């Protein structure tokens, strides 16, 4: 077990390095750099910018150095905890990200809770009543959420909420509460805005989860020990929940690691449409304007979370399933 842990930790480090190189390449891939997009933006507004100014700015932003040097500078900075400087916001990256991280977390957490809360009962019902009308009907509703493009659904719900409930359009709360301390009114306003993204993002995730839970549970229910349990007179509820469900949960725990990038990615488009002050729109804008440090550091942060998350879920799985521990490896 210990050897396994150490091995996994050692493997994580080169993985992160490769990811950092990939991230850097991805940001630099489109032509030009932050300054070129800034300049074209200014020119589009009819403002002139002289060549000397451009050269001066390039030097200021450190964009005149060769890419390899920029990359090294960035990685070394990150290892010291310095995430770099955002060109667009003119602030250190931690300030820009930190502001939004909390709200992102709230949104992601609510979405995950919603997804699990909805898919568990439906999955269990579907597995135990296979091919019934209920099974088909509920699965259909679950899939409907998956099939509808998120951005359109978000916009329609936004309009509907405004017309039906008078909720202000977009944002995570009504504008007047933005600077004020937390109060019941503010909390209520946040809830009134939060339900839209949670439902839109959550419903795309429930279908997959229902299907997986259903499939796994079906597999487990075929097994011998369930038959034995029934034969021995165990009440059906316990026979279902105590043993097969625990086994069916294995892949969920294994998937916690990859849940995070998915939720953050799925949330990005919806956040853009709904104008939520979360990390998604910030990331997209940073990528579009090639704000190297902001985009790069944030992506590294995400990748780091994911890699650590996958590691943690492997540990959790090993602890949960003694067979894995004893057999010495993961059977995927």
């Amino acid at each position, binding site marked *: 077990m210990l050897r396994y842990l150490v091995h996994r930790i050692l*493997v994580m480090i080169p*993985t992160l390095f*490769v*990811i950092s190189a*990939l*991230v850097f390449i*991805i*940001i630099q*891939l*489109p032509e030009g750099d932050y300054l070129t997009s800034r300049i074209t933006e200014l020119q589009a507004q009819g403002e002139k910018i002289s060549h000397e100014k451009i050269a001066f700015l390039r030097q200021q932003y450190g964009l005149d150095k060769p890419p390899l040097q920029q990359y090294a500078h960035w990685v070394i900075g990150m290892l010291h905890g310095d995430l770099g400087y955002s060109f667009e916001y003119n602030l250190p990256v931690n300030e820009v990200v930190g502001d939004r991280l909390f709200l992102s977390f709230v949104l992601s957490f609510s979405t995950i809770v919603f997804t699990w809360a909805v898919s568990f009962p439906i999955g269990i019902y579907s597995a135990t009543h296979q*091919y019934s009308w209920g099974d*088909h009907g509920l699965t*259909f509703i679950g*899939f*409907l959420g*998956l*099939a*509808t*493009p*998120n*951005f*359109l659904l978000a*916009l*329609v719900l936004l*309009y509907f909420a405004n017309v039906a409930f008078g909720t202000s359009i977009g944002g995570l709360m009504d504008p007047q509460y933005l600077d004020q301390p937390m109060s019941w009114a503010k909390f209520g306003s946040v809830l009134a805005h939060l339900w839209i993204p949670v439902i839109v993002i959550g419903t795309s995730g429930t*279908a997959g989860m229902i*299907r997986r839970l259903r*499939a796994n549970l079906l597999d487990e229910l*075929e097994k011998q020990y369930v038959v034995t349990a029934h034969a021995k007179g165990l009440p059906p509820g316990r026979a279902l929940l105590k043993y097969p469900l625990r086994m069916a949960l294995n892949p969920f725990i294994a998937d916690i*690691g*990859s849940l995070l*990038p*998915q939720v*953050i*990615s799925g949330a*990005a*488009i919806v956040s853009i*449409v709904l104008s939520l002050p979360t990390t*998604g729109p910030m*990331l*997209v804008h940073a*990528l*579009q304007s090639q704000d190297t440090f902001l*985009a790069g550091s944030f*992506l590294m942060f*995400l*990748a780091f979370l*994911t*890699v650590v998350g*996958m590691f943690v879920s492997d540990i959790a799985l090993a602890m949960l399933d003694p067979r894995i521990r004893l057999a010495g490896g993961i059977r*995927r």
Partner: protein
Amino acid sequence: MEQGARLPHYVSDAPFDPYSIETLTPEQERFFLASQWRMMWWRFKRHRLAVGAGLLLLGFYLAIVVSEFLAPYNLHSRHNRYIYAPPQQIHLYRNGKLQRPFVYGYRLHLNLDTMKREYTENTRKIFPVRFLCAGEGYRLWGLFKGNLHLVCPSRRGTLFLLGTDRLGRDVLSRIIYGARISLTVGLVGIGVSFLVGLILGGLAGYYSGWVDSLVQRLIEILRSFPELPLWMALSAALPVDWSPIGVFFGITLILGLLDWTGLARAVRSKLLALREEDFTTAAILMGARPSRVIARHLIPNFMSHIIASATLSIPSMILGETALSFLGLGLRPPITSWGVLLTEAQNMNAVALYPWLMLPVVPVIIVVLAFNFLGDGLRDAADPYKA
């Protein structure tokens, strides 16, 4: 052991028919002699929803071959006098009497105060719908000239069953033409994904060792990346001077290249399991080369699973294309796909004033659901030897 007396043996000399004890009923015979694919088909048929979905999809794909025939108007035909016109209803009854299907004409009022075009039904203008008629000229697949349509408007009238957009283009026709691009993106994308996943997963599963480690790390890296930045970067890197078709294939390539990890992992785990099976060992002992072992023995065993997984990935390709269009990275006008149509409907004007512009979402939902049900059915049927 104590030497005892010989035990009495009794072997009968009478003729013996081995099948007299246990005869197979015709049913059972059919079952046991059926090939693997046969059995899969039977299992698949049981899943009614999947069969229905499969037929529907088959219909859609056949339809895109003859989009020009099915659509009442051409992709780019505009009507300046019918901008933002609401959908026209087909009526069958007039004054209580059954008639040839017809639509009423529009009466247009240009409201210069609210800047809206106000349309009302003009019950005095009757335009019968024509079937199998000669309508607007087109070029089938851009090659063959023709003008036969399934339905067309009457000569002086209009047939906007789903309304028109801001340039007066028929929404229904655009949806039909858009199907061509969207459905093809799914297929081509999955083809790319399939190929890459099969090769890489196969190598990892069969050879193990460092190849396996490498591929696993690659998969892990790709999976820990949020999709969005990868899409954005790769789309932005597409050369600018490619023709629209080139961009189209570029986009499908990108979607396919970012999706193969699931397939590769499935292939790999199946191969790892099957490698230990007796029949593989037998084949190797009998002198079969690795290529023969893979092709003849291993692949047929998991192909069904892989096909099921692939089918289940197509919907994410189609939705991915719509998301890319939304971000402005995918296909853009003048190429028309469902994603492009939805992006054009992605504004408050469409939601509040002209809701029929959002109708392209319906075929997207139908196709995605259909692929999901089909994939479910295929997956349930994939291992016919399971109970």
